[in-house]
C-alpha cells in the first residue's frame, strides 16, 4: 500500500489481537487493502482470506460463519481449535455501497467483527466523496470550486448506526500511542460473542494531502481535536476512552491537509467556524450519551 497509509497498521494490529492458536477467516471488501494484498498468484494473508465483491464483505462472511456453525455442529470440522471471523472494508464498502449487507449481517448476529478502515473517501478509485467524507473536503467529485467550496454535507456517523443495531460491542478507535487502544478494542471485538463493529480512522496521504511521514501526527491530531473521539459502546453503554485535558482547535487537524486548504483562504473563516461547531456538538453529544447510558 502507499507510504503513509493508515490502513496497514489497522489490519496488522487487529490480527495481532487474534490468539496464537486461533484460526481466522478474513473477508475483504474490494478496495485499496484488498487489491494490494491479494493479487493472483500471491497473497499477503497468512490466515484464510476471501474476497468476492465491493459491497458484501459482511454478507460473504456471514455465509462463512453460518457454514462454520453448521459444520461444527455436525462434526464435520475438528472439535478442537477455534475459528474467528473478521471483515475489513473501507468507508466506501461500509458506509455506502455495503451498508445494507453490513446492517443485515450485524442484525442477524453472526459471530464476527466488521472492521471499517475509514479514510473518508473512495480512495481506490481516486478520491471521490463518500458519506464518510467530512464537510468542505475537496474530493474529485466535490472539488472545491469558485461556487461550491467542496463537499457541502456532513459525514455520516456510522458507529452510532451500529449502536442502533444493539450490538454487544461497538467501538471507534485509531492507530495511536503504540496502538494500545486499537489492540485492546480489537481483542474485545474478536472475543465478544456476536456481531461486533470497529470503526477505525485510517488517513490517506493521497486523498488527504499530508506528508507521508506525518501519519501518526495526523492520527494524534484527529483525537486531540475530538474530530475522532475514542470510545466504545458495550451492551449499549457508552464509554469515552480518552478525554483531552485541553481540546485542540480543529484548525490543527485541518491545516496539514491539502483537502481543506481552501478553508484557510481569507474570507473562508466561516468554514472553519462551522466545522468547529460541528465537532463541538458531536463531542458534547458523546459526553451526554456517556452520562445518560451509564445512569444507575
Amino acid at each position, binding site marked *: 500500500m502507499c507510504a503513509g497509509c493508515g490502513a496497514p497498521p489497522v489490519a496488522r494490529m487487529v490480527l495481532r489481537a487474534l490468539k496464537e492458536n486461533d484460526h481466522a477467516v478474513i473477508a475483504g471488501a474490494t478496495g485499496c487493502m484488498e487489491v494490494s494484498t491479494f493479487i493472483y498468484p500471491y497473497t499477503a494473508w497468512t490466515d484464510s482470506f476471501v474476497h468476492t465483491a465491493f459491497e458484501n464483505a459482511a454478507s460473504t462472511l*456471514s455465509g462463512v460463519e*453460518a*457454514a*462454520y456453525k453448521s459444520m461444527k455442529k455436525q462434526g464435520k*470440522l475438528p472439535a478442537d481449535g477455534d475459528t474467528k471471523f473478521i471483515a475489513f472494508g473501507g468507508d466506501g464498502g461500509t458506509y455506502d455501497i455495503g451498508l*445494507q*449487507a453490513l446492517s*443485515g449481517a450485524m442484525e442477524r448476529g453472526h459471530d464476527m467483527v466488521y472492521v471499517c478502515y475509514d479514510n473518508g473517501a473512495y480512495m481506490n478509485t481516486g478520491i471521490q466523496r463518500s458519506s464518510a467524507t467530512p464537510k468542505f473536503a475537496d474530493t474529485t467529485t466535490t472539488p472545491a470550486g469558485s461556487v461550491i467550496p467542496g463537499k457541502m454535507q456532513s459525514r455520516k456517523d456510522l458507529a452510532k448506526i451500529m449502536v442502533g443495531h444493539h450490538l454487544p460491542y461497538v467501538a471507534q478507535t485509531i492507530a495511536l500511542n503504540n496502538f494500545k487502544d486499537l489492540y485492546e478494542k480489537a481483542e474485545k471485538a474478536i472475543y465478544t460473542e456476536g456481531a461486533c463493529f470497529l470503526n477505525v480512522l485510517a488517513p490517506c496521504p493521497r486523498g488527504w494531502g499530508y506528508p507521508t511521514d506525518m501519519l501518526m501526527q495526523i492520527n494524534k491530531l484527529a483525537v486531540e481535536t475530538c474530530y475522532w473521539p475514542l470510545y466504545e459502546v458495550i451492551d449499549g453503554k457508552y464509554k469515552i476512552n480518552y478525554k483531552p485535558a485541553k481540546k485542540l482547535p480543529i484548525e490543527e487537524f485541518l491545516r496539514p491537509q491539502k483537502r481543506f486548504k481552501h478553508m484557510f483562504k481569507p474570507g473562508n473563516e466561516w468554514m472553519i467556524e462551522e466545522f468547529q461547531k460541528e465537532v463541538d456538538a458531536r463531542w458534547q453529544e458523546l459526553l451526554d450519551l456517556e452520562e445518560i447510558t451509564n445512569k444507575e
Partner: protein
Amino acid sequence: MSIRERLSGNEAAAIAMKQINPDVVAAFPITPSTEIPQYFSTFVSNGTVDTEFVAVESEHSAMSACIGAEAAGGRAMTATSANGLSFMWEMIYIASSMRLPIVMSLVNRAVSGPLNIHNDHSDAMGVRDAGWIMLFSENNQEAYDNLVMAHRIAEHKDVLLPLMVCQDGFITSHSIENIELIEDDKVKEFVGKYKPEHYLLNAKEPIAMGPLDLQAYLFEHKKQQAQAMINAKQVILDVAKDFEKMTGRSYSFFEEYKLEDAEIAIVCMNSTAGTTKFVVDELRSNGIKAGLLKVRVYRPFPAEEIAKALSHVKAVAVLDKADSLNAAGGALYTDVTSAMYVNKNQVPTVNYIYGIGGRDTKGDDIKGVYEDLQKIAQTGNIENPYRYMGLRG
C-alpha cells in the same frame, strides 16, 4: 419403494433440499419462489435438517452468503426468481468464477419492468452466459429429480460449477401434481458427501480465495471455466445414468417426444413442453407427423446433439419465453439455429416469442405453430423468422 405424493413444484423443490440436507441455505423471499425458503425454514425450525438458514436482507446477500458458505467448505443452496436473480447478478458471475458448486432453485418469472409476477424465462436468459449449469424442468417431478442430481454434477471434480434448476413460476411451482419421491436414505446415498479439496475453514491449510486477477492470468482462468462447462456434458449424462438405475426415470440433454419420424418439430423448455406433447398427440391422431424437442440442459448447450436430432425434419419452430429485444430473435432460437448452421443442418427454422409476463399458452396456439410449420415444410419459405405466439393485435 418410492413414495407417491401430490406436491406443488415449490414443495417438491423444498423436499429435495430437505433430503439433500445442505450445510447452509441463504435466501430472500420473492414471488413465486418464496414458498421454498418458507417450507425449508420449517424443516430447520423442527430440526429435520442440520442446515443453518441465513435469512438474509436481500438476494445480493443471499448469493454472497452462499458463496461464503461454499468457499468455507459447506454445501450451500438458495432459491429465487426474476428480480431476485437480477439483484444477485454480480454475484452469479463471481460464484462461477470461484468454481463454487452452489445449487439454486430458480422459479422462472418475468424480470421487471414493468413489474409482473408471472412466468416467463427472462430471468434465466439474463444469466445464460454467467457460467452456471442450467437445467430446465417440465413439471414438479423434473424439478425434484434435477435437484437430486444437481450436486453430483456441480461438485464433480471435472466440473466445479454452480447449477440452477429452473421451473415455471406458478404454472408448475404452484400447481399440485402427482410425484414420485425417492426415500431419504437413497437420496442421501446418491448425493453423497461434499469433500472440497481446498476450503476456507481448513485451519491446517489456510487459503485465499477471490483475488485480483489481472492480464497475466484471467484469460487462462476463464478458459478453465469454459472447459469445466464442456466437461459437464459427460458428467450430466453419467449422473443421469446412475439416477435411472435408482429410479427408472431416464434423463438426457433433451427429451425427444415423437421426434424420431417427425416432419415438423417444436423446440421449447419447461412447462410448455407438456402442452406441446398434448398437441403432438392430437396431431398424430390426425396423421400429422409432429414432434417435440424439449431442452433440459440449456447450459452447457448441447449444440451438436440438438442439430443432429433436428436434422431429419422439414421445419422447426423454436419457442422462446423471453424476447431478446435484439431485432433478430430469442436466445434459444439463436442457440439452436447457430448449432444447426455449424453442423450443416439446413432445416428451415423459425422463432416464436410467447408467454411473456405469464400470457397463457394454449393448445390452440401451439397447434397454430404446427400449422405454420406444415406450410413452411411444403414451401421451404420462411419469410419472417422472428414471430410471436399469443400476442394480441
